[in-house]
Every structure is written in structure tokens, then in C-alpha cells.
């Protein structure tokens, strides 16, 4: 287990063990036995494990292993030695006639892990934690190939929703913990080695030791104003006191399109089109300028194009990582480098990360430890416009009928949008101008994001006296982003595709984050009955950002690689946009007390006072308290006799967090330059203040049947008050909506984690983990404001906003007409009010009611096999990928069952391929987006010890692995797991996302 190697933990743990040792001394002297000695090895590192308690079972006789894991203890042949260490599975060995007993300790399984990190140098024995905290350790991360750290959390922790914003390589992932608590930034706070970071993108997953997720207010309140959406603590790998050890791992794989969706092919499209004309003839509707029915000969002459397949390709993915760790008693190091490369399955998209990390820990003297961690990572990403209906790219892919060719006979992209008429193989087609040939967008636009991140953290722990440590941590993160958008000059005049002027836009963002934490911790173990841990400290955060952008047209060079602002033809056409800069500062004081009595009655309390420059002077400071309590029933005498219960714990917590992540300077009456070089007043609100998120949590934890079964259940109510909203102004104020603390949102949820692990025979063991999270979201108050609408699309008539956030309903619910059936002409009949006017209602919820994950890990001899499923239930999706409101657009296969005179019982609106009618947004277009996905399947083989020894290797494992190979869903689009937008008000609308690829990979892990 990783935690023990962290410098700042050692002092506490050492104290604990020293105490145990001292208390045992008198007992040892009385023993009349021989000396047994040996070494305790860490399974993961293969090195000696210091600090392991070696106890003669049934006695208080025991010792602690030294720095190299060696021990010597007095015992008789009949004794059993118990080796225990936090984070490892306790192992028992009979002494027998041995004089030397070497033993390997295995890392214990994640949720049963015995120590949890709670931040600020404090750790707790899992059994004594009275808050809702969950951990993921590196074993889970390393055994399957993951591209980004967020994916390690995906499906592994109850009630944490991780959704990729798209399947495009390097696309950001959105994390939502315990429902959506705010209409603003709902992303959890992320800390790497105790330092707040803007995201986790820059971290190589191979460098991660473990992830801790703080979910309830009592665990996250120590992060005060920023912990309201939950907290994720990421710990990186550390070195250890042993000879250098090298790990080398890598995988290579191929990704491909997972699904082609339910869209019409040529034959089906022609049938639908012909049915539409038949209908119009029956109803006496003039078909206007459109062509007539397709004859069989015409259909045969037309191409049959699956646009999504045309623009997709197989793409490689690879990851290589090398790490060296080692050290001596004073100094330990871990150095690593990694290269990750992922090509995209659509167009020119890719993501690459090169990273270099160093972790160095040294003991300056007995009482002073210094730990430096630094990482540099270079991330490059090529991307395409997606989820934008104006891009004419991904939105065209689903909407474009299959009857247009991709290229003309000369190999030039075919122009299906020529309004003067389009002829294909002698067949005259209606021009489809709204949805252009996506090949154009894919070939002439080049978008690149280059991000360099330098991150470092220095932690100094100074143990002033036993149990009392003064720590200082200085974190620094510098992020430089360059985004380039190049639009090439091209001339396909044969198809009327001409762009005579190329253009280049460049945006740079330079950010710095500085964080200084200074705190003292005191571990007071008054006697065996009372354990007290106190912590108090202060924090300073300073965040600066400067954004600059410029735009120019007409460059000599015409490729993204060559073009730059030095070769603009006429530099007077270069436009330098306004710089945007801001600086946010935060000051905080915090404290926490953790106490338990006989590890039976557990208490903790925190308080934090935060001051943030984002608010005006009157609202600047906020106080965030929390308390929690737990009762370990299994330690009570009345349960002592129940053998099947190892642990049974009840816990409850309450606390208040904040959320301060709003745009800066909202409190100040200020002006900003607009596009025309003018200056405009900005909306402002001098009283803007923190969002306040209070959470009550009740939980049960149990370990049953010899620790074979683990159960964790949590109920919570999370209430956001003073939620920040862009509160619409009457227009006559002439200002955009200022942010006001107006609304309240309530999330109630129930979540659980079940673990079952066992052995069958001596060679087969398995480990099954099931987790789920149920959540119900409701806006309880909008502070008198109008409902907030969001999620506009143009594919429906009138381009309505699809979501509404109103009192009494979940945030961002779908809002539209309710279709009650079809009339005698096959047109929709909507629910009406007393005046006969159709009324809009809530018709869906884009957020899932239930998310769940299932992990199965098995080992048989040297083989290991894991299966990982994740699913989502009750989330609705609007398939807005086709142009319902536009004539001639392609459709999903549902229309093949459209109403007709011969099919009067159909519930599908009559065919209307030629008209833009009947396409008001209604529940007709809201689909069930539930899915169950086999996220990963991995089969691994580790070479047996005998061979490894011959090869002089410590460990060598090979594996094959597949991601997203199976998906069960009723959704009609390409992928039900459609991306989330950064705005929580625009969710579940499929405007043409880049679908998640499936992939097959082979990899290895080598240690020597």
C-alpha cells in the first residue's frame, strides 16, 4: 500500500508503532524462546517492508521490522507469527522448526484498505473513519490500459459519474459527484499530492499510486470553499529504500468505430422518401420544387454511403512508460518517463502526452523530511469541431442522406448542397445544403492544442517532538496552452467548393497556480483507549491567467505545419483580440480534530475559514464547518461472539462546503472591450457570494465472513443554497445577466459498494466488486427568477432550447410538447391546455437515476482475468443528430414504420422527408439513453518464478485487453454515452458527438 511510503505519514505511523513497541517491551523480557528472524517483502515492490508489526499470536510479544524489512523475534515452535501492516493483508505463519521465516505481504484490496488519506498530513485507519471516503489504488489502475486518469475512477466508485465530453482523443472528461449541485462549475476539486490543480490531464496514469475520493461534507469540508462538489486526492508514486528497480510497461492497440447507429441506408432512405411523396399525393400537398419518387433504376444507380464509416478509420493507440525507483535509508527516489499516443478514429484527430516525473525524498535529519515531486508534461491534441450544429461536420454525418457520393468522378469532394441542382449518376437529387459534405470540414480545417504543464510540489515535514509535526508544502503549477485553428485555402471549383483565403487563429493561455500550505499535526495517543489527532493550518492560493488571441487571413503557406503570422500577406489584416487576464487569490485557515475511543466510538470535526478575492469585500469570507461520528458495533461485547462479522460500523456526518468557482470580478462594476474596439459595461453584483452546499450523510460499513464480503452503504442529502445563477435581467437594463445567489438545489442519494472475494482451491481466487449510486435531483427554489433554459438546437422547428431548470424539477430537464398520439392524417397531436394551445412540459431528465459498475478480477495460477462493466439507467437522450426540422435530412430507422393509410396503428409520425413540418420538440424525440457497457476485458499471464529467475527478471506479465467491446442500449444514435458539455444545463443532447471507439490492445509489464 502506497500510503506508508509518503514522508509526511511516517511520523504518525512511526509514533504509533513506537508506542506498540514500548508497551510490548516488558512482555518480551519474560519470554523463554529462541530467536526467529527473517525478512518481510512487499509484494508490489519486491523489497523489504519496514515498519511491519510481527506479533506472536495470542500474546503481546512483537517487534517492528527495520528499514530493510528484517526482524528478529523470540518465539516457540508452537507459536504462530502474525505479520500485519496497514494497507497489507495480515499474514500468519507457523514457526515450526524454522529459524528463518521470510514472508511476502500482499497489498490489501482497495475498499478494505486499512489506511485512508484525508489530506493535510492526516491519515486514518479505515476502521476508524467516520466519513464517506473511497479509495482506488494503483493495482486497479495499472492492470488495465487507461489513457487518462479520470478513467480510473469511471465506474469504480459509487455515485461518481465520469463522462468523456466526446470520443475524440484527449477530449476532457466531466466528473460529477453525487448528482449535480450547481448550475455553474460542478467539477470536483482535484488535488495532486495536496496541491489544487485545474484538471488531471497532465498526469500520466502510470505514475499514480492511488486516488482517494472524499464524498461527504465531513471529509471534504476541510477543503472549504472549493470542496462543495466533492474532492479527489491523487497521490503519485514514491521511491523506496532499496536497490534500484526498473519497471517498463507498455501497450499497443487498435481502435475502431464501435457502432454505425440506426440510420437509414440507401434503400431505406429511398423508401422513406417515396412514402413521403405518396403521402403528399394522398393529402394533396404540393411538393414544391422537390424531385419526385425514386424509381428502382434510380435507386440502383445511386451510391449507398454510410457517412460515419466513410469518415472513420482504424487508429493506433500506444503507451510506454519506464520508471526507476530506489534509494537508501535516508533518500528515496522515483523517476519516470512516459509516452502516450492515440490516433483518432475520425478525421485528423490525435492526442499525445510526453511526461517526465521525479519524486525525491530525503531525511535531512531524524526529524526533518523533505519531499520534492516535479513533473513536466507536454500534451498535444488535434481535434475537430463537434457537438456544434454549425460546424457542418459531425452534425452532417448523421443528417446527410446515404445517396450522395463522397467524391465525384475526379476524386474531388462532392457538393451535395448546390442549390441549383445535384445530379448523381444521371439521377437528379434535391440539394441538401444545410448538411455539407463532412469531408470538407475534415480536410481543410486543422485544430491543434498544445499544452505544456510544469508542476512541482515541495513538502517539508519537521517533527518538532513525538507526534507533533510542522509541515510546509509549496505547490506550483504552470500551464501554457496554445490553440491553433487553421482553415486552408482550397479550390475545388469543379464542385463549387472554393475558399480563396486561408485563415489562422491563435490563442495562448498562460496560467500559474501557486499554493502554500502550512500546518501542524499532533498525534496524541493518550493511552490505548484514546486516540486523538489534531491539525491546524493556513493556506494561500494565488492563481493568475492571461489569455491572448489573434486572427489573420491570407497567408503564403497553406498547411497548418508551415503557416505562421510571419507569412501573412498583408499584416494590416491581422486582428489582435483583447487580452483577458485575471488573478484570483484565496486565504484560508483550517483545523481538524479526529478522535476515537477504543476504536469504537469515532468522532471528527473540521472547520475552515476561506477568503476569496472573487467576492466583494462584504462577502469575502466564509466559514465551513463539519462534524462526523461513528460507532463500531463489531467492537462491542454484544457482537464479540458473532464470528461472521469482522467489522460493522455505523457512521453519520454533516457539514457545509462552498463553491467559489465563478468568473472573476463579478462583484465589480467594470467595463470590457468588445469586438468593435469599443468598451461596454459588464453586469455585476456587489453582493455575490459563495454557494453553500450542506450535506448530511449516513453510512454503514461491514466486513463479513472472514473479510470475504465487504459492504458499504451511504445515504445522503446534499443541498445547495445560494446557488449562483446568471439571473436574467430585463433588457432595459442593457446588461447581460449578472450572477446572483438565487437558487437552491437538492440531491438525495443512496449508494453502495459490495465486495466479495474468495478462493476456490489453492490456485483460483476471485474478487467481485459491485457499486451503484442512485440520485434524485430537484431544484427547490429559483429565488423568484424565471426558469433557466439551455441546450438550444436548430434541428427542431423554431430552434428551441431543449432544457429547462425550474422549481420542483431536476436541473436541466428536457422541456417540450407531449405527444398524445397521431391524428387521422398521421400528424402529431400534442397535449393542450384549456384554450386548446399545446403546452410544454418536462419530458425527460438527462441525468441518470442510477449508475453502476461491476468489476470482476480473477486469478488462476499465473493467469489473471478481469472484466469491468459500467452502466447507466434512466438518463434520457435527445437524438438531435439528424435535421428533423430540415427537408430531405436522413432519419433513424424508426421512420420505416411511419404512419400511412396501410399502417394506421403506427405511433410514428407520417413520412415527411420533404417538409420541415411536425418537428416541434416533443417527447417523441426523447430516447432512453440507458446502457450497459463492457468497458474493459483483460486477460493477463505472468511468467512463473522459475522462468523469471532464469531471465533475471523480477516480474513479467503479458496481457491482451479490450475496451468498449460490448454495449447494450436501445439508443438509436452512434453512442448512448454521449458526451457531457461543460455546462450542466446542456446535457444529453446528441448534436453529433464523436463516438467512443472500441479498442483491442496487447501489453506487457516488466520489472527487473
Amino acid at each position, binding site marked *: 500500500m502506497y500510503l506508508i511510503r509518503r514522508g509526511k505519514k511516517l511520523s504518525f505511523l512511526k509514533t504509533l508503532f513506537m508506542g506498540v513497541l514500548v508497551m510490548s517491551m516488558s512482555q518480551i523480557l519474560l519470554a523463554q524462546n529462541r530467536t526467529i528472524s527473517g525478512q518481510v517483502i512487499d509484494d508490489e515492490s519486491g523489497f523489504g517492508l519496514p515498519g511491519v508489526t510481527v506479533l506472536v499470536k495470542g500474546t503481546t510479544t512483537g517487534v517492528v521490522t527495520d528499514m530493510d524489512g528484517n526482524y528478529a523475534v523470540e518465539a516457540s515452535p508452537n507459536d504462530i507469527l502474525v505479520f500485519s501492516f496497514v494497507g497489507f493483508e495480515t499474514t500468519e505463519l507457523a514457526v515450526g522448526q524454522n529459524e528463518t521465516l521470510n514472508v511476502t505481504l500482499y497489498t490489501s484490496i482497495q475498499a478494505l484498505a486499512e489506511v485512508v488519506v484525508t489530506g493535510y498530513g492526516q491519515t486514518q485507519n479505515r476502521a476508524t473513519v467516520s466519513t464517506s471516503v473511497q479509495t482506488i489504488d494503483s493495482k486497479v489502475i495499472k492492470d488495465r490500459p487507461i489513457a487518462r486518469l479520470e478513467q480510473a475512477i469511471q465506474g469504480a466508485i459509487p455515485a461518481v459519474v465520469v463522462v468523456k465530453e466526446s470520443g475524440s482523443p484527449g477530449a476532457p472528461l466531466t466528473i460529477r459527484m453525487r448528482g449535480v449541485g450547481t448550475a455553474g462549475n460542478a467539477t470536483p476539486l482535484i488535488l495532486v499530492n495536496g496541491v489544487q490543480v485545474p484538471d488531471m490531464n497532465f498526469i500520466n496514469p502510470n505514475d499514480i499510486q492511488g486516488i482517494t475520493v472524499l464524498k461527504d461534507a465531513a471529509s471534504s469540508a476541510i477543503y472549504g470553499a472549493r470542496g462543495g462538489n466533492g474532492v479527489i486526492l491523487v497521490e503519485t508514486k514514491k521511491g523506496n529504500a532499496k536497490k534500484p528497480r526498473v519497471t517498463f510497461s507498455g501497450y499497443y492497440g487498435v481502435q475502431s468505430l464501435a457502432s454505425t447507429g440506426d440510420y437509414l441506408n440507401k434503400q431505406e432512405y429511398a423508401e422513406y422518401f417515396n412514402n413521403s411523396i405518396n403521402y403528399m399525393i394522398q393529402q394533396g400537398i404540393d411538393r414544391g420544387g422537390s424531385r419526385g419518387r425514386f424509381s428502382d433504376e434510380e435507386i440502383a444507380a445511386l451510391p449507398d454511403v454510410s457517412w460515419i464509416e466513410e469518415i472513420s478509420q482504424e487508429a493506433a493507440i500506444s503507451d510506454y512508460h519506464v520508471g526507476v525507483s530506489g534509494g537508501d535509508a535516508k533518500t528515496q527516489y522515483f523517476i519516470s518517463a512516459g509516452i502516450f499516443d492515440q490516433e483518432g478514429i475520425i478525421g485528423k484527430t490525435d492526442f499525445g502526452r510526453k511526461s517526465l516525473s521525479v519524486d525525491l525524498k530525503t531525511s535531512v535529519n531524524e526529524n526533518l523530511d523533505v519531499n520534492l515531486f516535479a513533473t513536466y508534461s507536454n500534451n498535444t491534441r488535434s481535434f475537430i469541431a463537434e457537438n456544434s450544429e454549425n460546424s457542418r461536420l459531425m452534425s452532417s454525418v448523421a443528417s446527410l442522406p446515404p445517396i450522395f457520393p463522397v467524391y465525384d468522378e475526379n476524386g474531388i469532394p462532392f457538393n451535395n448542397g448546390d442549390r441549383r441542382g445535384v445530379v448523381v449518376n444521371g439521377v437528379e437529387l434535391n440539394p441538401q445544403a444545410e448538411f455539407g459534405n463532412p469531408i470538407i470540414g475534415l480536410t481543410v480545417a486543422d485544430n491543434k492544442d498544445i499544452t505544456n504543464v510544469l508542476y512541482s510540489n515541495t513538502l517539508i515535514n519537521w517533527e518538532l517532538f513525538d507526534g507533533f509535526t510542522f509541515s510546509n508544502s509549496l505547490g506550483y503549477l504552470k500551464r501554457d496552452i496554445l490553440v491553433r485553428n487553421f482553415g486552408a485555402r482550397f479550390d475545388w471549383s469543379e464542385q463549387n467548393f472554393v475558399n480563396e483565403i486561408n485563415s489562422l487563429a491563435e490563442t495562448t493561455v498562460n496560467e500559474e497556480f501557486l499554493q502554500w500550505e502550512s500546518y501542524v499535526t499532533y498525534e496524541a495517543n493518550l493511552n490505548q483507549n484514546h486516540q486523538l489527532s489534531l491539525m491546524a493550518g493556513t493556506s494561500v492560493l494565488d492563481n493568475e491567467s492571461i489569455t491572448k488571441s489573434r486572427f489573420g487571413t491570407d497567408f503564403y503557406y497553406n498547411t497548418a505545419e508551415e503557416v505562421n503570422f510571419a507569412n501573412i500577406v498583408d499584416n494590416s489584416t491581422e486582428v489582435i483580440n483583447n487580452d483577458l487576464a485575471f488573478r484570483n487569490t*484565496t486565504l484560508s485557515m483550517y483545523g481538524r480534530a479526529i478522535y476515537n475511543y477504543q476504536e469504537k466510538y469515532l468522532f471528527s470535526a473540521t472547520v475552515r475559514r476561506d477568503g476569496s478575492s472573487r467576492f466583494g469585500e462584504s462577502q469575502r469570507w466564509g466559514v465551513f464547518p463539519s462534524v462526523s461520528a461513528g460507532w463500531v458495533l463489531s467492537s462491542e461485547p454484544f457482537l464479540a461472539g458473532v464470528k461472521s462479522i469482522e467489522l460493522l460500523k455505523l457512521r453519520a456526518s454533516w457539514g457545509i462546503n462552498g463553491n467559489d468557482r465563478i468568473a472573476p470580478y463579478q462583484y465589480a462594476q467594470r467595463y470590457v472591450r468588445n469586438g468593435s474596439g469599443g468598451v461596454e459595461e459588464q453586469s455585476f453584483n456587489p453582493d455575490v457570494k459563495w454557494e453553500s452546499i450542506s450535506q448530511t450523510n449516513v453510512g454503514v460499513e461491514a466486513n463479513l465472513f472472514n473479510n470475504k464480503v465487504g459492504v458499504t452503504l451511504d445515504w445522503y442529502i446534499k443541498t445547495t443554497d445560494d446557488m449562483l445563477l446568471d439571473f436574467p435581467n430585463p433588457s432595459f437594463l442593457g446588461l447581460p445577466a449578472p450572477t446572483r445567489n438565487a437558487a437552491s438545489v437538492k440531491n438525495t442519494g443512496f449508494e453502495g459498494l459490495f465486495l466479495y472475494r474468495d478462493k476456490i482451491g489453492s490456485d483460483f481466487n476471485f474478487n467481485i466488486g459491485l457499486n451503484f449510486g442512485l440520485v434524485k435531483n430537484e431544484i427547490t427554489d429559483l429565488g423568484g427568477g424565471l426558469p433557466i433554459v439551455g441546450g438550444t438546437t436548430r434541428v427542431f422547428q423554431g430552434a428551441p432550447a431543449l432544457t429547462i431548470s425550474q422549481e420542483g424539477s431536476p436541473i436541466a430537464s428536457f422541456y417540450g410538447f407531449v405527444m398524445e398520439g397521431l391524428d387521422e392524417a398521421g400528424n402529431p397531436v400534442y397535449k393542450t391546455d384549456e384554450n386548446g394551445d399545446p403546452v410544454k412540459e418536462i419530458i425527460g431528465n438527462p441525468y441518470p437515476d442510477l449508475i453502476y459498475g461491476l468489476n470482476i478480477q480473477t486469478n488462476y495460477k499465473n493467469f489473471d482475468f478481469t472484466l469491468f462493466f459500467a452502466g447507466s439507467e434512466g438518463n434520457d437522450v435527445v437524438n438531435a443528430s439528424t435535421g428533423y426540422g430540415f427537408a430531405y435530412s436522413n432519419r433513424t430507422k424508426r421512420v420505416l414504420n411511419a404512419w400511412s393509410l396501410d399502417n394506421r396503428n403506427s405511433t410514428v409520425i407520417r413520412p415527411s422527408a420533404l417538409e420541415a413540418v411536425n418537428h416541434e420538440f416533443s417527447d417523441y424525440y426523447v430516447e432512453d439513453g440507458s446502457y450497459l457497457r463492457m468497458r474493459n476485458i483483460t486477460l493477463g499471464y505472468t511468467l512463473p518464478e522459475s522462468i523469471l529467475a532464469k531471465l533475471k527478471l523480477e516480474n513479467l506479465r503479458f496481457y491482451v485487453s479490450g475496451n468498449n467491446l460490448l454495449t447494450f442500449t436501445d439508443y438509436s444514435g452512434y453512442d448512448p454515452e454521449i458526451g457531457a458539455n461543460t455546462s450542466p444545463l446542456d446535457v444529453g443532447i446528441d448534436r453529433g458527438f464523436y463516438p467512443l471507439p472500441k479498442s483491442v490492445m496487447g501489453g506487457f509489464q516488466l520489472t527487473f
Partner: protein
Amino acid sequence: MKSKIYIALVSILLIVSCDDFLDQDPITEPLTEIVFTNQEVVQRLIPGAYQPMRWEFVPTFGDSYAMTYIYSDVRSDDVIIENTFNQPHSHEFEIPSILTTTNVNVALIWSKFFTGIARANQIIGGLSTVDETVIPDKELFIAESRFLRAFYYFEAVKNFGEVPLFTETTDVGVIDNIKRKPITEVYAQINSDFRAAIELLPESWEMPTGTQEPSETYRATRGAAQGLLAKAYLYQENWDSAAYFAQEVINSGVYALEENYADNWVLSNEHGIESLFEIAFFNDPSGGSWNAGAQGSLTAQFFFPPFDAPVTGWSYNLTTPELHQAFLDENDLVRLDATILTAGHEFGSQILADQGNDPVTQEFIDSSPAISGGQYGTGFSYALKYFITPEQVQDETTDFVLSPLNHKVLRYSEILLILAEATLNGATGDGQGAFDQVRARAGLPSKPLTLESLKLERRLELATEWNRYYDLLRWGDAASEIEDFVPGREYLPIPQDEIELVGPDTDGSDILTQNIGY
């Protein structure tokens, strides 16, 4: 040992004591007190107050449009809005009976006027307490802002009727101030603002040396204020004042008629001799397109026929056969050729010639999908006053939807017609002479000035320039001339959201009342 603890505690307390650390003023966004103590910065507020005039598409309320051509001529008998596109909320303007109070275009049109008013008021309010030694051009800035306020209020009163009247930024907190005011009261403010502007605005704005495009020529002049005031008085039927200010413009000698009528809409002749005020559009991609900051106009996209690339327009606004016939009946071929796209028209464009469309054929016009597939029958065509050639599109714009061609707000010929109309109603002045001048430039002979001939002259001279609907309203001819006219729905509805945002009065009734008829 204790000393060590003290060291730790003291260093922690040191951090806490620096509260000043939290005072972070905006870096790139100047505060009000900085803005209004700096002439250069105040000068930059002015373009912001002009900007709402340019609002054409702003996605604030959804897919909403607020260009004048969406809500003015389409309500008259001269122009229709073509509806094969997915724009039912634009189409509603064509048929007032289906126009809803939640129409997103109406919300944006309202917002456009009142944003302009608010920005003008911000400048007036911000400068009111500042000394002229700090801002030397204080009075000029105020005068220009008052011009803009009057401009927007004139548009607001024409389209919404009674509206709330704000003359300072600070007085919106009082319920009584938010209530809609009688039209006469609104006009009184318009008159007063234009008069104040006349006092101080310059005759013309020169482009200061060394500055870059866009130049200052788009800014309001004394002539613009006089001319718009004359027009405002015409709408108020204050004939004497209308005639007086029209005469002032004429007497100033600054303006004259273009020799060639069509030259008014030539890209190289913006702010020409005939033009008193224009909504200026620039090919400036920095403001983007399809948003509130756009500097170019969507007219190319909306008005152009479906030529082959690079100018495949949307055929959005179409002139009616009735308008076409009105020109023919008057044998008014000069203005017809400049106003409506007719067979044989020459664009002077090699690109269109290569496509076989220059000169344009009747077949091309008739076979345009908007017309051949449209729902209105035949005889429709395109409004030529918003055309630039494909070559100009390519040379002058970076984006097809950033047409740099200005919209004419007021031309000298209208000043002459205002004088003529005022004299018909008893004001003094050479009405007949002014009337004949306009006709003569169009190559038409003199004819007696009567109310009937004046009405026709305005229709033909100002066709597709967004006057016809308001003219019909004030003449009382709307019901007889407009097929789908609904009495009571002369004005646009007050946006429902705005009514709800403002909320109820103490007695529970809406503070902002709805127009009768909705």
C-alpha cells in the same frame, strides 16, 4: 520544545494577517471610476452604444434574429419573408395573427433597442458627474449619446408603441419608471434628445489621421440629427416642425441627391452625398459572425439568390409582384432596376457571368427554389439594394456572412419627401419643388403633389428601405393595403419574458402591460 511550537504557530499566523492579499482589482476590465476619468476610454464606450444597431443574429433567446428586414417591410405589402427554411418565428411577422408574445425574434428586437438605450444612458449617466476638465469632450459625448438614445427610442416607439422611458441608468429601480409611457411622452424625449444633438454634433466626422478602419464616418452628424428629427416630427404629424428641420437639412448645403439613383447602394459610395445616416457594417472578423459582436451584415446571406458558390444566398426576403407592378404602372424603370432584380440585370461580375447569371435571366429568377418551390406563387424577386458582387464578397469579406454594405437609414431624397408631405398638410415650403426633384432624378416628369402621389412616391423611392409598413400605419392605410393585417396588432407584442421578469405591481397587475390585440 515550546519555542519550536511557537515558530510553527507564528509562521502560520503571519499568513493569515495579510488580508490585503485578497484585494484584486480587475486587470483587463477597467472599473467605472477609471473609465469615466479618461477621455480615451469614454470614447471607446461610444462604438459600444452603436453596436446594437448592428444586431442581426444573437443567440440570446435561441435562434433569434433582429435585423430590421425581419420585422419591417415583411409586415407590409412590398416584401415577403420566404419560408422554406426552418424559421417559423421569423415567418410569424408575415402573418400577425400567428405572432406570439414569446416569439424569440421579438424578444431580441426589444432587447436590441433597449440595450442601445441603456448603453447611451450609461455614458450620459457616467459623465453627468464628471468635470469637463477631466473629460474635455464631455458635452459632445453626451450629445452623441442623446442622438443614439433618440434613435433607439424612435425605433422602439414605431414598433412597440408605448414603451418605458429611461433617461438615466439609475432610475430603473422605481416601479413607476418601468411602466410604459404614452407615445407622446416618448416622442417628447426623442425630440428633446435630437435637438440637443443638433446643437453639438459636427457637420461631419473626419477620419483622424493615423487611425485604422473602421473610420469615424459612421458616427452621427448634425445633419443626421436634423433629418431624423424631421422624420420623427412627420410621425408625430407635427408638420411645421417636420418642414422646419427638413428645410434646415436642405439649407445646410451638405447633402444632395446622387445623380444616379443606384449609386446610393454602391459599396464604394458609403456615406455618400445623399446619405444622412447609415447603420455601418464592416468586414471585421474580430467581432465574429452570428453573434452580438458581429460587424458585418447578414444581408448577403439572406438576400442573395442561390447562385452557385461562393455566393449561395438564402432568398430570405423577396419583393412582391405588387411592388413590381407599382413600378411598372408608374413607368418607373430607373428605380425598378435599382430595387428589384429583373431579367437582363447586369451585376458586372465575371464570376456570375461564368455561371451564366450575368446578365441574369428570367428563367434563373423563376427557377430559384425559393420562388418555384415557395408557397406564395410566382412573380417574386430579389431586393437589389443589398447586393454586392461575388467579386466584392471575395475581395472585401473574409466570411460570406460579413457583408460590409451599410444599411441606409436616411437619405436626402426622404428629406425632400418629408418637406413635400409636410407642406401638403399645411406647413410652409416648396413641397412641389422638392417632390419634383426626387422624381426628376428618377427620370420621371413632374406631376402634381397630392397625398396620393406623395404616398406612391414614398413607396417607390424608398422601396425595401424599411419605411413602407410604418408609412401605411400612420396614413391609416394598413388595413386596406396589407392582406394579413390584424387590427390591434399594428405593434409588436411586448416580450412575455420581459413582462414576467419585471414582475407584478403592488396590485398584482403586470408592471409592463401587453399591447392590446395580443
